[in-house]
């Protein structure tokens, strides 16, 4: 068996530049920061959301409310893949009604995580609008879900794996494509 081939799609400075652009696009999407709330999906999505909130806050001189969400309990595959025992923390701002929410995640793939996130958000309030920003869109959707802001679009097959590495969890920032590395 040949070892899977690993290709760097973005290095640390590439990730930084991409996040910079995503942060601008989010502000554009939400028409400013007045009602904007960023919600990161555990775990790497929440790290990225935190950085984006910080970047936007610095630039606009206004704190951007931040939430984190673990969607494990809203997944549709408990029956088949078993529970993911590591259920992460969910901590959302008090009031989501009438807000402009942007969900942030690292990789958009089947769309099932985002479906679960939308269900979960509906149990917490009634935002004015919900958008989606992702660092990488790798294709392969199984649901009619698209991102509003995409950092990097990659054509990956189901046999490939896209690894998003973040400083907070992995000690460095990078996006890597592992051909035939499906875990």
């Amino acid at each position: 068996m040949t070892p899977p081939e690993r290709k760097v799609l973005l290095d640390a400075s590439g990730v930084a530049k991409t996040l910079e652009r995503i942060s601008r696009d989010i502000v554009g999407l939400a028409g400013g920061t007045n009602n904007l709330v960023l919600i990161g999906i555990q775990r790497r999505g929440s790290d990225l959301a935190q950085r984006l909130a910080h970047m936007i806050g610095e630039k606009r001189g206004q704190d951007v409310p931040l939430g984190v969400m673990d969607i494990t309990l809203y997944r549709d595959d408990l029956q088949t893949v078993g529970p993911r025992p590591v259920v992460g923390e969910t901590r959302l701002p008090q009031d989501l009604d009438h807000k402009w929410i942007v969900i942030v995640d690292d990789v958009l793939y089947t769309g099932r995580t985002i479906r679960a996130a939308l269900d979960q958000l509906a149990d917490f309030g009634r935002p004015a609008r919900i958008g989606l920003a992702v660092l990488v869109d790798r294709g392969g959707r199984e649901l009619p879900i698209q991102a509003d802001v995409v950092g990097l679009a990659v054509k990956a097959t189901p046999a490939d794996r896209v690894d998003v590495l973040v400083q907070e969890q992995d000690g460095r920032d990078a996006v890597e494509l592992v051909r035939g590395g499906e875990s």
Partner: protein
Amino acid sequence: MTVPSLGKDLLGLEPLSREQIQLILDTAEPFKEVSERAIKKVPALRGKTIVNLFFEASTRTRISFEFAEKRLSADTVNVAAQGSSVQKGENLVDTARNLESMRIDMVVIRHPSSGAAQFLAERIRSNVINGGDGMHEHPTQALLDMLTIRDRFNRIEGLRVCICGDIAHSRVARSNIWGLTKLGAEVAVCGPQSLMPGAIEELGVTVFRRIEEAIEWADVLNVMRLQLERMEAGYIPSLREYYRVFGVTLERLERAPRDVLILHPGPMNRGVEIDSRVADGPHSVILDQVTNGVAVRMAVLYLLAGGRPELAEAAKGDRGGGA
């Protein structure tokens, strides 16, 4: 990543490993937050049917399980021995098999006979959770006790926990001893000789004959309920005598060298095993135990309801590369 699984049933803490117990406690953490939400419900167990089969009186445990089930979106049915065909003499297995024919997924059973949960688990396909069987085990109670202790001290390892009162007849005491010792706590028991099982030291616990010694030694006291029928059976001379010698009173706690955390599984006999001023005082985490009970039971239900390993294998492609 290999995650320890709980297997099909939760029958007691004796058969569980330290890792499995820790998995349940860790999984309970995020479930606490679910109960604080405006909409206290997640869809994790949608479509699962759970029967709460209670052959013995229970308020707290039954309601706690029912809240846990409902907050996970399971459908629940409560069967009490009174008013069911059990009264007509139907045996346990027939009752359970009939329920299973209605396509249920899980059974929570409380039964006056030790071993009833295991007996059932070996005979039906559904997941079985022991909600207390005779004098054997009451695993979810011990788990919520441990979660409450961990909340306060951020650890269990190395803590000194003394279980007080009727140890001989207490399934709560037994499950606590198994769980706490597996997680590395030092465990002691304290109570009258007549309510102490023989050879208790073999479980790796210290025995205190005097409550004052126990209080001086312990970080935590878990005060067991004195079952009043024990007095009629002659195990103790009188309730007043019991309180005088073994009661956890404010005066006794005030003489302790450190603040002792007080737990009680309920229902309490105020003025028998515990002083009202202690039960309602700053040392007590008795109501936190009740809150944690729902979270722990949600964790157990969630972990047991999870899919089967062979299906996990087949569905693996679904999880590669994030969302």
